[in-house]
């Protein structure tokens, strides 16, 4: 196990990239702490798999260095990097039994037979594959196969990190939870560094200590699930995380007031006047129905009853606005809402603006 440093990494699939747009992965400078679980979260095509493949060594970055601990591994091939990877579709060796599958990486590394037997038995125990150890891997279910691919990483004592590339895509929903919590347990018990690529926010937030949100080839925020929820650094993060996502409304910001479509909104904190395009962001959870002072009129498009709460989908003028409302209270004919001032974030050109001290 060791710390992984991505030193000003950038990658383009073109031979001679010229503009910023030619890069599938724009400059990333990141340190992955030893023993932590990270999730790379973002929509399809945002560069998360590229970043993962750079760490695993399947891709050599156009710029920058990859450092494991103190060792520069940028130019080392995958097999020399001591990482393990679990792919979207379970990769198993059809003709081998489960135990042979697990022994395969050790055999290739010329580990003594006694040591192989011991480690394979340990891994089978860890993953709960005992009853099927002697069976051909081909006949197993998708989640068992995925455990085998994971096991081929766990069985090695030399892995620096285990990389997951959307590993639960082909797993049945009810097995997803089980497999994910098992993964978390393994992580807590053995403390590998884990990097987990997904486009599913629930998966990312429940799995990782820290979530790295990517958008259009850039890392837009690295933070704990709580940070991502409360202080999204980019409007994309606000929109992408949470269900429904954060409301983003164009506004003029001055002092502790923002003006949205001619209505004043209290901000809780003091902001300098901002040049450029300014917006305020507020999560649906912090929008309340209230027709008191400083409230905004909204139009209602639909109300979805989720069971424990309701989601109101509406609009302020032309701008969409969602609110999470408790059960039980009737929604008036011409509702008005207020925002929790402490929970309103200000954005300039999509990036979070810090308040004045």
């Amino acid at each position: 196990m060791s710390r992984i440093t991505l030193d000003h990494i950038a990658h383009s699939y073109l031979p001679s990239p010229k503009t910023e747009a030619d890069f599938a992965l724009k400059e990333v400078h990141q340190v992955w702490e030893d023993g932590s679980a990270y999730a790379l979260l973002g929509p399809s095509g945002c560069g998360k798999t590229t970043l993962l493949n750079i760490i695993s060594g399947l891709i050599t970055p156009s710029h920058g260095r990859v450092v494991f601990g103190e060792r520069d591994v940028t130019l080392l091939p995958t097999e020399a990097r001591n990482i393990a990877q679990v792919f979207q579709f379970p990769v198993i060796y059809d003709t081998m039994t489960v135990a042979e599958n697990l022994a395969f990486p050790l055999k290739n590394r010329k580990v003594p037979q006694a040591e192989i037997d011991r480690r394979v038995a340990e891994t089978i125990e860890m993953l709960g594959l005992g009853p099927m150890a002697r069976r051909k891997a081909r006949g197993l279910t998708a989640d068992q196969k995925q455990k085998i691919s994971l096991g081929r990483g766990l069985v090695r004592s030399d892995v620096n990190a285990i990389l997951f590339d959307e590993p639960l895509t082909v797993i049945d929903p009810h097995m997803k939870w089980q497999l994910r919590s098992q993964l978390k347990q393994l992580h807590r018990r053995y403390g590998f560094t884990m990097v987990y690529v997904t486009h599913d926010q629930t998966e990312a937030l429940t799995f990782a200590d820290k979530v790295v949100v990517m958008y259009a080839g850039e890392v837009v925020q690295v933070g704990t699930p709580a940070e991502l929820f409360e202080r999204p650094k980019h409007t994309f993060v606000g929109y992408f995380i949470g269900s429904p996502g954060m409301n983003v409304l164009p506004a003029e910001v001055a002092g502790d007031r923002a003006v949205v479509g001619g209505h004043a909104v209290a901000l809780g904190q003091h902001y300098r006047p901002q040049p450029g395009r300014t917006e305020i962001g507020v999560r649906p959870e912090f929008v309340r129905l209230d027709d008191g002072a400083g409230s905004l009129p909204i139009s209602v498009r639909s109300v979805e009853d989720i069971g424990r709460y309701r989601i109101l989908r509406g609009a302020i003028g032309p701008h969409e606005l969602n609110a999470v409302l408790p059960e039980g209270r009737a929604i008036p004919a011409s509702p008005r809402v207020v925002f929790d001032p402490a929970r309103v974030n200000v954005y300039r050109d999509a990036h979070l603006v810090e308040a004045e001290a």
Partner: protein
Amino acid sequence: MEKTWNNKAWFMVLPVLLLVAFSAVIPLMTVVNYSVQDTFGNNEFFWAGTEWFEEVLASERFHDALFRNLAFSLIILAIEVPLGIAIALAMPRSGFWVPVCLVLMALPLLIPWNVVGTIWQVFGRADIGLLGHTLAYLGIPYNYTQDPVAAWITVIVMDVWHWTSLVVLLCYAGLVSIPEAYYQAAKIDGASRWSVFRYIQLPKMHRVLLIAVLLRFMDSFMIYTEPFVVTGGGPGNSTTFLSIDLVKMAIGQFDLGPAAAMSIVYFLIVLALSWVFYTVMTNYGQDER
């Protein structure tokens, strides 16, 4: 729902039934008919019973042809299958060269069989053929019309040239269906090139290889046109395979009874061997499921 019973289905099946009857069943029955009778022409037939079968099964001529045919099939399988796999492995998986390779590979398969025979017949001639002339010029003795070894080599090389492409194309289809992740995982597992072949590529090609072996076996066991055009079964009887022998007997000597008996025996052998091949190969590795 209630099932409807009527005889309409017969009308649907009837055309196919008639077609199969005229194209397969009736000719086959004619052969059966000939195989148990003797005729001296004039549409006069005498019951012969199993006499022809006994004669064919006991004849050395049949044994020799059968042995030659088995040897031929085994040799071309032993060459074409590994060679086909090797070429398929060497072919590019993507890019500009893929269609080029595929077209090149498909070319020999598009040439009519007797044309293939003619090509090689001319190609191997010492006076005007490129191959024969070159070998003669280099002082290598090669004459497929007189030397049985040269004749065999010519027939085998011709078959390899003609049919390896089929194995290549089938294997290639199996290879390109392997997802990239398998190769990446193998790299991470530190697998050698041989291990990748043995544990990833070969298992994925298993099914198409089964088809390739079966097709090549059946075709080579029934081979007629190409060796007939090149060597005519000679020199002597050295390249007289079962089908060539059969034609000689039926049309050359007009021994219709023994020829019919031999056709039936031949047919049963092809059927039985194909069945054995198929069962053995499909069962291989299927245990312990």
